[in-house]
């Protein structure tokens, strides 16, 4: 009964695991015999206890993993919010429309764009092609 209540971590400090025993034929044969899956038997109970302990041990590590993931998620959300704010700020700055300029300024604007369209053309030729403003 003492063995029944003993878990994997309850071994004595001076206990040394014997490799030969650990890999003995009895242990290997046990699952093949079907004893592992049987409802009765001490071995099965031991296994159940051990697995229960394992569950307990693995839970903190899973929780730590969740915490890391949630931190990453929060970071991403914050970054997204920052980007959204930046975009909103960029859109808030309404640039005055080109069309609000005077006819002379518009002619100058068109001339600038025309010069960009013809980068290799000389200034004299550009002047010749220039769209005149309203007289």
């Amino acid at each position: 009964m003492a063995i029944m209540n003993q878990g994997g971590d309850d071994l004595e400090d001076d206990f040394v695991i014997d490799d030969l025993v650990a890999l003995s034929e009895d242990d290997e044969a046990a699952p093949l015999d079907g004893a592992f899956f049987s409802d009765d038997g001490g071995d099965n109970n031991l296994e159940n206890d051990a697995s229960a302990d394992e569950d307990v041990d693995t839970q903190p590590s899973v929780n730590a993993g969740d915490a890391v993931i949630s931190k990453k998620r929060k970071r991403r959300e914050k970054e997204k919010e920052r980007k959204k704010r930046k975009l909103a700020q960029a859109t808030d700055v309404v640039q005055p429309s080109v069309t609000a300029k005077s006819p002379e300024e518009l002619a100058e604007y068109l001339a600038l764009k025309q010069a960009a369209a013809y980068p290799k053309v000389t200034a004299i030729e550009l002047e010749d092609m220039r769209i005149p403003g309203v007289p």
Partner: protein
Amino acid sequence: MKTTPMLRKRLAQKSKNHGSPTLLFITGAALRVADVTRVLKDKKLRGEKGGEVAKLFAKHFKLSEHITHLKRTKIGAAVGTPGRIGKLLCETDALAASALSHIILDVTYADSKKRTLLDIPETRDEVFKTVLGGTEMQQLIKQGRIQIILF
């Protein structure tokens, strides 16, 4: 339209020849063309006599389809992208500048990258080289027969 009463008057008039609009509306995107066309097709603007409004952009329409459409339709206004309008003006005789009085450049519309018709290098080059760059067009602009409007 209040600032250009002459254009309003001309849009309500019957066009004489096939494929010779009084207005060319140049814009950067096909979707924008559809929106502008819807506005220009309004009966309040065209009246009963006004010519058709042609949609001229390369998406979903072949050049040959536009040529056949323009050759048998009396249009009052043509709305389109600079690429397609430039091709129709320079490479075909389907779109004529004989009745043209106004060219509207849609510089208000900006794409998702906040670039306008004259900001995008491709569309800017097409506007100045094919639409406005033709010899006939240059002469008509200098004579003052065609007005360039920045919308």
